[in-house]
């Protein structure tokens, strides 16, 4: 706990503003990549994917205040676990059904 609540509030506000800016930039990059067509197709896809991942991190870190500190360890673990399960379920489904489709073809 900081002794000075005003300074704490300022810091918090700074965090939110930084988050907003980063979120905007990270949204602008994929749009720019698509609209200008400056990159090859595969490059565009990768750019979007990486920007999306960074976007997720920014939201977690600056808006939901999930970090590596001890008090947030539980939240972080739950998020990572959810991510793992979603990857397993969605990835597995795509793999299995895609494979079945290929077998039918």
């Amino acid at each position, binding site marked *: 706990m900081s002794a000075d609540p005003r300074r704490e509030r300022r810091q918090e506000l700074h965090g939110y503003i930084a988050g907003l800016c980063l979120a905007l930039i990270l949204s602008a990059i994929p749009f720019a990549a698509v609209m200008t067509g400056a990159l090859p197709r595969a490059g565009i896809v990768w750019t979007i994917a990486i920007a999306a991942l960074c976007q997720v991190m920014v939201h977690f870190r600056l808006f939901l205040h999930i970090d590596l500190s001890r008090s947030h360890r539980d939240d972080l673990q739950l998020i990572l676990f959810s991510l793992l*399960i979603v990857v*397993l*379920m969605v990835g*597995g*489904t795509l793999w*299995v*059904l895609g*494979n*079945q489709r290929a*077998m039918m073809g």
Partner: protein
Amino acid sequence: MIHFLFGELGYNALPFYSAIATVAASVVVLGAVVVVGSITWLRGWRALWSEWLTSVDHKRIGIMYVVVSFVMLARAVIEACVMRSQQAVAYDSPGFIPPEHFAQLFTTHGTIMIFFMAMPFLIGIYNFAMPLQLGARDVSFPVMNSISLGLTSAGAVLMMISLCLGKFSTGGWTGYPPYTELSFSPGVGVDYWIWALTLSSLGNTMTGINFAVTIYKKRAPGMTLFRMPLFCWTALCISILMIFAMPPLTVATLMLAMDRYLDMHFFTNALGGNMMNYVNMFWLFGHPEVYILILPAFGVYSETIATFSNKRLYGYTSLVWATVSIAVLSFTVWLHHFFTMGQDGSVNAVFGIATMLIAIPTGVKVYDWLLTMFRGRIRLSVPMLYASAFMILFVVGGATGVMLANPGFDYQVHNTLFLVAHFHNMLIPGLLFGMLSAYHYWFPKAFGFRLNEVWGRIIFACWTGGFLLAFMPLYIVGALGMPRRSQEFFEAVYQPYMYVALAGAALVFCALASMAIQLWTSIRNRDSLRVFAGDPWNGRTLEWSIAAPPPEYNFARIPKVDSVDAFYQAKQQRTAWRAPDEYFDIPLPANSPVGFLCCVSGGAFGFALTWHIWWAVVVSALVFFGSIVLRSFNRDTMRIVPSGEVQETEENWLLALSETPPVANEAMFTTANRGLVREPV
């Protein structure tokens, strides 16, 4: 007009098409009349309403869950006996049950056993015991808890109504399309099944959220995750499984409903539908579900084996990690339920190997339990008997599971009674026995008196014997090739095994009857079985540190915990049962009718949708959401138990405790046990 009022519901929905259906429906109606009549006769309506139906106390909700489960268990066991009788006479003969009716029987039996017997049983036990073990006063969201109970019971009531009005689904507990699509199953049966399942799976998802938050937020001070009793660890794991595994089921059943009601084509044969989407989603739920069913029993055995061996649980940390890894691995194996449905061999191999891996953490657990017993002071209580039977039988079931995990073998025996034998071999020792031992173990805590020991042992003998006779033969006939779900068969070799299996079913029926008798005699002789002092088994965890039955606020003062078996240690150091220096007012969640309203309106919603009574659909949905919205305006949600009342209750109990003579370890099962056991030297 008639059609507007009653939808598809008409006279032909009444169960007069066959004698068996008429009898079954009459039993349900008679049962309902007897219950209503006796409550009226005992003038119990007011108490029922204010102390049970509107209660949000986790202990009472837990007990109500178990009551639902017992009613449904009775029905499903009777159905199992009817099926076994049919198959015993079905060699080259149509027997006494026509194919369609037989299909309804295995569908309702399977659906009920999984969703309305097993799930309510384990949720009820957790509801009762888990907050007590955590040193909490209630779960995190008590009203949501009562809504969950309401939704599950609404589903159960729908199952019972389906016995009286209309015919149930014939699609098996899995309800695979396209068979369950409108073109092949035009009746209301599948709709009953869809809405019963949807209601209960919504309730279960909410329970999962509730339990997980409770465990994260309401542990007693000092109880780190790694100081929780193992039972609470399994609660955490199954809650997380429920949170992630229930939604695929809800989505799958709702998509099937859209196919049936709105002419969509998710799973139809034509117009781009793909039934494998359903199968895949169903088992994305289905495999984690079997671990939702089995982990609770692991939790119970971990408690009872430690208590009745009078030893600390061996390998606590390894048991925790084994539980967690089983929970995670359970999301990686769902495909083994459809090895034969069209993917190539390498996909099958991956999932087959993943499946076999689960045997490793499970093996770790069995060794840990054995080593807990090793050189312990074992007391063969009823829960201990179940635990021993479990350790032997579950290993057999696990071994056949590893066999089935091999896709080559699975191709041979899938869809035969071998599979039926395998999953009953897992579910009866690995779920039912666990829950029955939990019932015997915590019953004295819940009601303040023990269950009759002799009948407990008779029940145990009937269940184990019945299980062995009913299911071991099925491994053989399954390997010989007898298909599951057969109403008639034409191979003479199967016949003798069917007789044995029938004998097993009869024994299981005796077990059910003995359970009723046990409850009856225990209630009648409750005064000689009282254990008010609260610790009849020389327990190790916090729930034994309070009176039996516990006061509604559970703990006058929230305990502090600094080790795994905190209460046991306190007893050793003679610091247990200290009166608090000071008593405080205790705020508790106030009763609320919203759970009951959700039950009635949820049930009505499902029923109205089943029979296409659209006005009732709208009305019940409005009542459902209306009651939840209205509830959110109520700010007067807490009730204070004044410190004076707490003091009186506690001092009363502490006085009784100090006057209770501790009983010797050997005499634990006699009427000398008043709820206090002397530590053996």
